[in-house]
């Protein structure tokens, strides 16, 4: 242990100036972080992006600080060509070591507490949670919330995942669809089930994801806040046509949603377009197989409302 050298005021001023510069750059990077994400189409997305911005700010501060120190050392602290002597025999500094253990510890507690807070606000319903427990998001001003019509507790929409298709069933209207339509600004309630293997229900624009586990039904909820067409992706590897197992989510006004429900209910069942099945059938027709034997895809779902393949989305 070497004796503690006192720092000159000039060094302290320089360090403080560098730290401020680092902080300013990091704050700027943290603001950019919002631009790296898909559109914020759900109440959850707003919260997650705030958390990501916060994490990016802290991460940038540390990354810039450490790499700058290394860069300065590499550029200015090189040994002369014929200098074979050693550097100063500094073996450590207890105060510094305690500081760089306790400050990160405090930082970690802060990050964990903030993440917990965000998680609490999101309150994505896990399977262990009571189904009717829908915490308020605390995002909507009470006055505005009061003007919304009191929606009676609806039966959740059933999401059926299989190799390789998504199918949605609206029990109240007895409608099936390969496109998930939801009204804007209203908490969506879903029940996720899988008929074969693990799938993942993932809508990047909503920042939400839940594995769908065969043999259990999982209650799931989120609140879309922006009208538009979004991509639903299978996020848990589900076999050969995993990458093709995508769907479209349409968020629309309450009126448009009701209209869609009415229109869909009037439609007869038709066979939906299904990419996995189409590719598989085509491959079967080829005289020479280019790949290995695969699990055959389930036949395309027969639904009231069939989504157009590769429809535009955000």
């Amino acid at each position, binding site marked *: 242990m070497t004796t503690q050298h006192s720092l000159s005021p000039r060094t302290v001023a320089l360090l403080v100036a560098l730290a401020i510069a680092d902080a300013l750059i990091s704050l700027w990077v943290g603001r950019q972080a919002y631009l*790296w994400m*898909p559109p914020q189409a759900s109440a959850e997305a707003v919260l*997650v992006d705030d*958390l*990501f911005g916060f*994490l*990016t700010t802290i*991460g940038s501060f540390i990354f810039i600080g*450490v790499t700058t*120190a*290394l860069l300065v*050392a*590499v550029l200015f*602290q*090189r*040994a*002369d060509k014929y200098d074979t002597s*050693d*550097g*100063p*025999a*500094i*073996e*450590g*500094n207890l105060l*510094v070591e305690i500081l*760089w*253990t306790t400050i*990160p*510890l405090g930082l*970690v507690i802060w990050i*964990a507490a903030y*993440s*917990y807070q965000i*998680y609490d606000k*999101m309150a994505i319903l896990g*399977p262990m949670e009571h189904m009717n427990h829908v915490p308020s998001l605390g995002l909507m001003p009470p006055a505005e919330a009061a003007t919304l019509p009191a929606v009676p507790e609806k039966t959740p929409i059933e999401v059926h995942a299989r190799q390789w298709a998504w199918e949605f069933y609206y029990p109240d209207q007895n409608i099936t669809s390969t496109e998930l339509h939801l009204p804007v600004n209203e908490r969506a309630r879903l029940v996720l089930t899988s008929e*074969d*293997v*693990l799938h993942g229900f*993932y809508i990047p624009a909503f920042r939400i*994801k839940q*594995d769908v*586990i*065969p043999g259990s039904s999982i209650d799931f909820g989120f609140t879309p806040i922006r009208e538009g067409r979004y*991509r639903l*992706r299978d*996020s*848990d*590897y*589900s076999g*050969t046509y995993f*990458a*093709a197992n995508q769907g479209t989510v349409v968020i629309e006004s309450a009126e448009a949603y009701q209209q869609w429900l009415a229109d869909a209910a009037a439609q007869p069942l038709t066979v939906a377009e299904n990419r996995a099945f189409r590719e598989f059938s085509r491959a079967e027709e080829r005289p020479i197989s*280019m*790949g290995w*034997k*695969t*699990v*055959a895809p389930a036949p395309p779902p027969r639904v009231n409302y069939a989504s157009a393949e590769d429809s535009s989305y955000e």
Partner: protein
Amino acid sequence: MSNASIEAIAAKSGQPFPGAPNNWQRFFTFSTDHKVIGIQYIVTAFVFFLIGGLLAMVMRGELITPEADLVDRTVYNALFTMHGTIMLFMWTFPVLNGLSNYLVPLMIGARDMAFPRLNAAAFWLVPVFGTLLMASFFVPGGPSQSGWWAYPPVSLQNPTGNLINGQVLWLLAVALSGVSSIMGAVNFVTTIFRMRAPGMGWFRMPAFCWTVLSAQMIQLFGLPSLTAGAVMLLLDLTAGTSFFDPARGGDPVLYQHFFWFYSHPAVYVIILPIFGTFSEVFPVYARKPLFGYRFVVVSSVIITVLSAMVWVHHMFASGTPSWMRMLFMFSTMLISVPTGVKVFAWVATVWGGKLRLDTPMLFALGGLVCFLFAGITGVMLGAVPFDIHVNNTYFVVGHFHYVIYGAAVMGVYAAIYHWFPKMTGHMYYEGLGKLHFALTFIGVNLNFFPMHPLGLMGMPRRVASYDPEFAYWNVIASLGGFLLGVSTLPFILNMISSWILGKRAAANPWNAIGLEWLIPSPPPVENFEEIPIVVSGPYGYGSYEPLVANNPAGELNSEHR
């Protein structure tokens, strides 16, 4: 510990084959010399690294366009499964076992590992399960296509209906790999506990040995879980049991616990010896003692303990109850504290030194920068709400490739260059080394950085095709992938030509402190003529104190500090 016990062990075990050959043929025998086994591990692993890398380059070729057009989807799925499996079980673990095998006895002043025959047996299992794994390319139905996690029920779907299929071979290989690693772990832990030279107390042991000890303890408590999980899955697949098959009452999530209870700590099995390498390399090329040695080595052990309590962070989206999400979020983030201690200590070691930017130092510095980046994205991933968005996306793929390639592979390169003169008795070519570093560092960032924005945008991992919005970053990543393939060429050229033609290396070409540098390059079969008596700490740069009280090289070599 007493001196007598060490001498007794060394004398009793000794070399089972006295007068073992000292020529190239010995690398193809059941040699019990830890140095031979070390090099056997490293070279075998590197061959598999090239195979795994070729598979990755085909994948990057597929991903350079959004459509699934280069290879069939089944082929792509087999490629990423085998890429991951080969890179972990056939490259990273064996190469690190090789380095540890070579270095630990030399660093602690022992003549060999505690159980030389067990050591050789553990190594020779590697080509056995390696062959088994590669053979799966030639069975009907092809290799496993269920990802390196082999999550049921996908891994239990057997489209060919054959008893011998890619998944069965995969499980056998992984189970054997587990057995081999457990054999290695028993050996390392015993060696480090029992065979340190007189005078080498715990706090005189080089940081590398501390990290090997910490890593191998993880193998001991973690591997049984993975191996058991693999055997249960094998029984489900072949013998009709139903541990994990939900259609027959099994629980697929249970398998995930078995798998991650080992496979997350496995990341620390990989990264800890890399931390050890950094702790060895920075002092030598900065000419300064390792800053805060005690904090650094104790933090390795803390990482070992914490690593047993973080596995559920891989399952935040798996239907995990909230209390578990929060608990494992906190334990995961906590690991960044001992890790941060190390990072800051390395920066402080480098700071104010007299830097020499030889190839090992360049790789160590590059590896440290990549690790720092990976560590920061790792803490982000620990935050549950953010993880739910990027879980199973390319953000995770980018994160762990910064760990595995950016930090671990660069660290392995640093170690190979640093100890190459010791292992072979020849110097490598510095120019080729620097070229290798430049290509690797640029390649890593070009290949793996774009994966982060892709993940944030919502591109899932393991996809053979993707929406056109992701094309831009994928093209850059693919170019980086091909560059990484090219980057291995100067390395291979350098290693082969220097080993044959390189300038003769002195016992201590880097002017480094450490028992391994007191004996000739390459070391004689029994390493030390005289067991060293250690009288000071491992990083006495700048204090010019002797490390040992005797001359461990005996008459062989009088050149020592």
